[in-house]
């Protein structure tokens, strides 16, 4: 049953996002050590399997979580047909996944 699966997936991904977002925000604060340059960041991230896994997981979880919410919003607030909304949400999810993984690769690759 799609509705139930999506509902469960949205909750489970929210569960995973909570620590991921906290670590990410903490990192943003800690990473700034008297100014920040692209070269400085890349020197720490390039080749790091840990950060690749962390942000890779982050992107996958977001790409599942966000489109489910967007689908609900589109369904409730636009007059679009159910099928159209599903395709739009799926497209949005794939976009997030593609753009996100590309960004992760750019930083750690």
């Amino acid at each position, binding site marked *: 049953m799609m509705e*139930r699966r999506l*509902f469960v997936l949205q909750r489970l991904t929210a569960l995973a996002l909570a620590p991921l977002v906290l670590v990410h925000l903490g990192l943003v604060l800690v990473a700034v050590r008297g100014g920040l340059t692209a070269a400085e960041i890349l020197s720490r991230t390039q080749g790091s399997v840990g950060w690749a896994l962390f942000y890779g997981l982050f992107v996958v979880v977001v790409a599942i979580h966000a489109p489910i919410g967007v689908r*609900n919003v589109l369904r409730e607030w636009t007059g679009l047909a159910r099928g159209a909304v599903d395709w739009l949400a799926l497209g949005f999810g794939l976009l997030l996944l593609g753009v996100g993984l590309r960004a992760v690769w750019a930083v750690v690759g």
Partner: protein
Amino acid sequence: MSDAASDAANKGGELTVRVWRGAEVGAFATYLVPARANQTVLDVVTEIQRYHAPDLAYRFACRVGVCGSCAMTVNGVPRWTCRTHVSRVAKAGALTVEPLRNLPRIRDLACDMAPFFDKWKAAGGRFEGGATRADLPAAVDPASPKRRAADAGIECINCAVCHAACDVVAWDAEYLGPAALLRAWTLVNDERHLARRATLDRAMGPGGCASCHTQGSCMAHCPVGLSPTEGIAGLKRMSLAAMFLGDR
């Protein structure tokens, strides 16, 4: 109250009551009725019908908060009118009475309850029993967790106040609504109900529990103090458990 006290209260003057006349298209008509001590909104509507507008359509039956027929919108809030005292809701001697929100208007204060009960059915709210008249009545332990989970919900009087109070019902035509989902919650906890799994699936299907925004208007307005929100949360938990642990 003594006659003297009653007379004193009657000297309180008049109530100005705006009543919706018409169906989807209509207008408010204003009536002046005597303000009395101890009068309910339903008393006021009845007085208007008897003495001012004999063609006023409204719905009621028991007058004592059991049947759930007389719900209307009073000063913008959905209420059971037979148990709503005017003194509690009138603002400066004025009342505005309209039909319930989120249901088609038939005439004046009567709305069509069919969509409300259609959603009951859509949520799997029909009881499917397996016993025959040859069987003994089922022995349901009042202390069992399932029976206790359904304790509150079975007191629902189907007045549709929660349905009218719910904003999600207002903007999402597909949403089954708090009353239908609370009904489903009582059924999935009823050990005599054979279609338990089907009810759970329908309550979690399109327009079901996942559409609830947990705004809680249903429980804030329920005249008998039930919490459909809690029932919906229970359905979600049960559905999750069924998915991961297998059906119990």
